[in-house]
């Protein structure tokens, strides 16, 4: 059964505070391949591995039904820095 973006978004927002969330369906519509960019203060003080484990656990049921799942996790501060860097590079 394909997962839809709304279901993913709900599952994430229900569990943690979200500053910014991008969900990209990379499956050309079959719903089995998603990439997310997630900015949350819940990641503060956590290693990347711990953050990914947190999201993996949060989306356990959905990920089990997908072929591929890719994530980028930032704290609000990290994301600001990243955007500043990207803006400077342009």
């Amino acid at each position: 059964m394909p997962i839809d973006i709304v279901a993913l978004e709900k599952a994430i927002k229900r569990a943690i505070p979200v500053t910014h969330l991008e969900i990209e369906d990379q499956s050309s519509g079959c719903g089995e391949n998603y990439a997310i960019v997630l900015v949350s203060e819940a990641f503060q003080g956590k290693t990347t591995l711990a953050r990914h484990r947190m999201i993996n656990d949060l989306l356990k049921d959905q990920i089990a039904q997908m072929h591929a799942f890719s994530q980028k996790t930032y704290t609000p501060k990290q994301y600001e820095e990243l955007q500043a860097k990207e803006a400077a590079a342009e």
Partner: protein
Amino acid sequence: MFRPTLRSSVRLLNRTAPSTLVSSRLFAYRHLSDTVRSRLQSAVKAHPVVLFMKGTPSEPQCGFSRAAIQVLELHEVPPEKLQTYNVLADPELRSAIKEFSEWPTIPQIYVNGEFVGGCDILLGMHQSGELETLLENNGVIPKYEESSSETTTEKASS
């Protein structure tokens, strides 16, 4: 289990697949047996770098596994320090490793028995420079730091 492609294809031939076998396997997936757990434990420690992937380094069967192997090649991880396992050749391994690492996707990478992460983490660490440090600190690749900083100093002083 999981060791080589050859043995697992033999297993496929031997498989008679009555439904009881299937259900006991499913049960085993949910509750990783101590035997499987200890085998995986020694497998991830047997080589400095262990990569569970789809396909082989020369023929990866998935873009994420390809990316993982490319990053390791980029860092010139010596072949004798790297062991890869093709999870597509061994369905039992494919499920077991997910439960063992508590990680839902493939590829998965271990350095000196420590779980590092999947493709996203590996690429992220590569970009930030953490991967190089990790590989250096674990004696997987030689440290370049000294020689490169020396070069810089020489250039600066000359």
